[in-house]
């Protein structure tokens, strides 16, 4: 009976790596929702206190805080690496998505620097789009120096995740659950660090 239930659950539920991917996507959505809610809340407060009608663009301009070149560059780098690390963790070997992975591009995968080409493609195509948005999002928050320093750890976590993914690719067809979990853990921690300024800003605004 329990075996039947287990097999039924296996049929219904996606494999746990996919469930964890959904968790990452949910975390990113929560970050997006917090940002939107933060702006809405600020707007409603200003609306209540303002004597006259105001323009939303003007409000956003007024909210803008320069976070500094280093922080902006760090965030662009971190988000680009985050996308690359996530793609590598899920799409580098045929383990999770057998029909959608790096090795379905045999010319690229057969080359010595195929991984670098694949990574560069992820960095340049979706990474570039995100890079155009990310610093603007952070510019609406008052980010403490402590939090900025904490974010310096993000690329380190992401490099660790990349190492784990590449290691999984090099040992394939063998698998290593610990390495995969380590890669996922570092990826998730990086995401939390990346979203932390937004979540803290929203929490403070709520308070």
């Amino acid at each position, binding site marked *: 009976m329990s075996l039947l239930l287990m097999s039924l659950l296996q049929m219904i539920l996606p494999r746990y790596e996919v469930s964890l991917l959904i968790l990452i996507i949910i975390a990113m959505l929560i970050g997006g929702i917090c940002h939107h809610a933060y702006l809405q809340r600020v707007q409603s407060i200003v609306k209540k206190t303002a004597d006259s009608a105001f323009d939303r663009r003007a409000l956003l301009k007024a909210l803008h805080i320069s976070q500094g070149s280093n922080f902006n560059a760090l965030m662009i780098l971190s988000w680009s690496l985050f996308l690359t690390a996530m793609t590598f963790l899920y799409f580098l070997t045929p383990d999770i998505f057998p029909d959608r992975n790096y090795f379905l591009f045999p010319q690229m995968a057969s080359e010595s*620097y195929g991984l670098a080409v694949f990574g560069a493609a992820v960095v340049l195509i979706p990474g570039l789009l995100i890079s155009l948005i990310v610093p603007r999002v952070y510019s609406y928050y008052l980010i403490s120096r402590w939090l900025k320093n904490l974010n310096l750890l993000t690329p380190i976590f992401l490099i660790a995740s990349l190492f784990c993914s590449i290691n999984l690719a090099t040992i394939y067809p063998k698998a290593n659950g610990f390495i995969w979990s380590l890669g996922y853990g570092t990826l998730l921690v990086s995401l939390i660090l990346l979203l932390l300024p937004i979540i803290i800003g929203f929490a403070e605004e709520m308070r």
Partner: protein
Amino acid sequence: MIKASLVALALALVLASLFSIQVALCQPDGGQGASLDVPPPSPSTASSGGGGGGHRQIDLDRILKAVQEGKQKKPDKFEELKKLLYIEPFSTVPYSTDLHLGLGISGNRTLNRNDKFAVTATVVNPNPIEIRRALYLHLEALDPGENSFKIVNPVAQIVQINEYKDDGNEKNITARAFPDLTSFSHLKKVGPAVLRLSVSDGQYNWHSQNLTLNVTNQPPRLENISIMPQPNLRYNDAILYLANVTDPDGDSVNVTLHIKDELDRERGNITQMVAGDGQASFLGNEFFSKSDAGKNFTYYYTFGDGIVSNETTVQDGPNLRKSISIHVEKPWVTPEDENQYWWQNYNFTLGMKNQGQEEAKVQVTLFTDTSAHPWRAAASKEVTLTQEPQVVYFNVRPFDVLDANQSFRFKFAYSEYDQHQQDYITKDWEKALNAKLVRYETVSWLGIGNILAILLIAFLLSILVERGFYR
């Protein structure tokens, strides 16, 4: 006699009708109150037969009077009576045999055998409908070179007596098409062809004027004559004779290939029908045997469209090369590493020698076959074979990442026939390729180099975007 009977019958009908009207008119009319004072016909009149002429006169007078009164007092009834008594006038003109027959075709009167056209016949019948007869139409054709007309439509087209109409210019005209003749593709000769219409009503026969058409023919052409493959054919290669056929008229062209030997004798021939424009292709292998190796042959074509026959000049070929029999053995592969990774080199070998005494140049090609890459050419080279056995080898990297974890086989194909009269030898390799996908370790120059390259690109992107958009 018939006319008299008809008149008598009509008169009787008139009298009976008038009698009925008179009785009706004399009935009291409560609604209108208008009645005619007409005495009823005397019984003696009705029963007198032919004896009471005076009484009949009187009765007729009364009837006429009643009708005249009715015309004035009840004009509606009078009109109804007129309609009732009206008889269509009919003609008594004599039957005319002066039919006007016409015959025409759509399109040009000078045409080739495959040009499509429609033949239309018109008949003008001057007779009125009462005396018309059904007409039976036949289309007749006099083909080029023939002496007599032939009927085109065995089943006659029938024009019924009521199938005429006025078309503005002509009265009583009708037209018929003849779908039995839409082209002259059946003709074996060209020249003037004559059409005419033959009409019969069962008693008289008519013929239309002749319609003369000039049927032409343009001869077919044979171009781009060749033999495939070229050159250095073996006697048992698939020898293909090709020629492009064009016929300006779109006729089907009968093409015959004639193969001649070195003594100019015909070795054989083969025929093919090409519909319109197209390519004639003949497989010539059936005409050659092992004894023909080293001999030179020639060929030519005869071709025609059923009217014009023609032939090409004599062409050279095929020049069959001298037959060499080679001996092959021991196809083998030695992987660079016993793990059989896809990225490694593999040494494919084949033992070969010439069974004859002379030297022979043989082209050898290596093919590998996996489910990801079926029969992919890996390498090719020309080797010179003598009676001394030698090992022909190809040290190549024939696989890519898609071949990982797959079994494979390989094939050596060569340009001469071996001891089994085959020009290839295959070998299945039992051991599958290793499933490992990435050739290097994580902690290696390539592993670290790939990560550093990704970091460098991401770092450059961040600097460039920050400087470009946020300063």
